[in-house]
């Protein structure tokens, strides 16, 4: 199964995501070509798989506020916590929660790169580099894997937000999550 003129993969992705106009050439090619439609089938499977992974809470994410709205629109039941710098919260996840969203507020104006550094109980620190954040809203949204969280006994996580630039690192907030099973 080969194709003499395969559609460029980026063009295929752009068409799939609706970025490219639905032109005759690409659509007729896809309906005629087993090779290119096979590549498209992988993209369709990825789309379906990503939705399933998010729905089933199999992956941890740092997300945007509109993404949280997308989760809500998709019918996911969300439990939310909001913390200011220095804040602490008793938190949990129940069987009927699909996801937990932690909104960490921090002064983020002028921050160009932000890292999340966290440690569970007395364990080592783990760093997530260059996370997305909303500087104007002064907010970072963490969504831990719900599937993982539902298996966890009581534990405490300390999370730090660290701004990074050429001059070095500046901590802009520290937050404590005291988790107990739902």
């Amino acid at each position: 199964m080969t194709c003499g003129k395969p559609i460029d993969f980026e063009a295929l992705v752009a068409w799939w995501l609706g970025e490219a106009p639905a032109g005759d050439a690409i659509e007729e090619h896809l309906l005629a070509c087993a090779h290119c439609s096979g590549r498209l089938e992988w993209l369709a499977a990825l789309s379906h798989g990503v939705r399933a992974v998010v729905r089933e809470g199999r992956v941890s994410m740092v997300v945007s506020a509109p993404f949280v709205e997308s989760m809500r629109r998709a019918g996911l039941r969300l439990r939310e916590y909001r913390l200011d710098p220095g804040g602490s919260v008793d938190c949990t996840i129940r069987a009927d929660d699909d996801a937990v969203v932690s909104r960490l507020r921090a002064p983020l104006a002028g921050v160009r790169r932000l890292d999340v550094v966290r440690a569970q109980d007395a364990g080592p620190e783990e760093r997530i580099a260059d996370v997305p954040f909303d500087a104007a809203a002064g907010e970072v949204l963490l969504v831990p894997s719900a599937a993982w969280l539902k298996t966890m006994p009581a534990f405490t996580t300390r999370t730090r937000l660290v701004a990074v630039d050429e001059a070095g690192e500046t901590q802009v907030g520290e937050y404590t999550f005291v988790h107990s099973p739902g």
Partner: protein
Amino acid sequence: MPQDDRPAVLDDGALARRVAAAGASPDAAAEAELCRRLGRRIRLYGLRHLCDRHAAADLVQQVLLLTLESLRAGKVREPERIASFVLGACRMTVLEMRRGVRRREALLEAWGDRAQAFEAPEPIVLDPLRLAGCLEALPERERSVVMLSFFADKAADEVGAELALSGGNVRVIRHRALSRLRDCMGAGEAIR
């Protein structure tokens, strides 16, 4: 040496010609092979334009019915360009589906039990545990771009607006992320 005319080795155009030549006495083997090939592709067209698995499955049924009906009745002027005919049928049917017109019932009535023989093509399903592991292994920004693109169905410019990046930058990050995912999922060169 006799020419191999088994449906599986014929190209789409030759298959369509064979279905058309059979007319009112359907060539079941040729029709089944043509439907098997076109069904998968029509389903993908439907997913892209209707954004719903059930609606895409419905589109497959309607377009295959219309295509076979037209081939059998000699209404397809160039069977060798069957993809062009199917594209037109897909577009018309999607428009009708959006307007709520139910063409399938009329076609089912016209063609009876024969029309119900199409099996919905089985989509590829990625191993969810493996995919979750591959997504977890992506750098955070790449994961965000993938999630916004494929969960929230956002185009590059919209993703860029949410992540304070340009659309071009999002496309570069997305390209890198998809490349890592293909490698991690073992999809390899065939997908590139």
